[in-house]
């Protein structure tokens, strides 16, 4: 059972409001090591310099979208194993399937509650303490 506070997390979303909401949800779950990136390119740059255990990424973003970010991470040795949870809209069923092909660990359909966020993270990491 991993401690939430031990999981280093990167939140990737081009909307400040969404990043703030996810950060607040993670903090409620006991996460303390939370970084933010404003798009896939920013995320990639940060992850190469500063690896994390979990990436929570939006799909629709300028510069580099969530799927391209996932592909880039999976093809780069040091980031290949990072847990990746994609945030999607209701209409993105095709995306979920494509993300699965590229090794996404889980997905979250927006808008989601903190309980759902917890459940999705626990499906990847096991029960959080």
């Amino acid at each position: 059972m991993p401690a939430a506070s031990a999981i280093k997390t990167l939140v990737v979303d081009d909307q400040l409001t969404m990043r703030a909401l996810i950060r607040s949800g993670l903090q409620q779950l006991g996460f303390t090591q939370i970084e933010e990136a404003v798009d896939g390119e920013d995320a990639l740059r940060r992850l190469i310099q500063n690896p994390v255990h979990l990436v929570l990424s939006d799909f629709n973003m300028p510069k580099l979208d969530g799927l391209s970010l996932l592909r880039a991470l999976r093809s780069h040795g040091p980031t290949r194993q990072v847990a990746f949870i994609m945030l999607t809209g209701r209409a993105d069923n095709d995306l979920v399937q494509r993300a699965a092909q590229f090794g996404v660990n889980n997905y979250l359909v927006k808008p989601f509650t903190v309980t759902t966020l917890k459940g999705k993270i626990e499906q990847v990491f096991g029960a959080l303490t």
Partner: protein
Amino acid sequence: MTGRAVEASRKVHVTQGEHHVSDDPAVVATTVLGSCVAACLHDPVAGLGGMNHFLLPDDGGRDDAGAIRYGAYAMEVLINSLLKKGASRQRLQAKVFGGARMFDGLSDVGATNAVFIRRFLDDEGIPLVSESLGGQAARRVEFWPASGRARVRATTTAPAGRPAPPALEPAGDVELF
């Protein structure tokens, strides 16, 4: 447009939970709002825009974050549709309408919606160029996505939940450039 036939406009009604994006000058997005909010976003360079129509869930303030999540998602869907059609996030401008207090004696969900949309636009750095929020009147909104022009008309001035008042004259159009 003297000497030119007026182009037939194509009305697209946007109901709660929906959005519509277009760069067609003939399209006018329309909606009717009570407590709901409609955000009309426009990119003046790309000549395209879009309208959404949403209502934050009201649970008496027990889960404000939940309400914000819902609104943030509604806005994200509209913004992403605009970006997909070629709008630039940096050029987006907003006009927002709705958030009326429609029922006496209940929590003012309209005000919650109005606070949310102002805060959201401020946080996201999207300039709010005009607004018609609050009050006790339902609104009929027309928005031309290609030009960014909007027109709002009050459809009633009395809160619901009381005996219907005598029919009122339309409160007049307000042009919001």
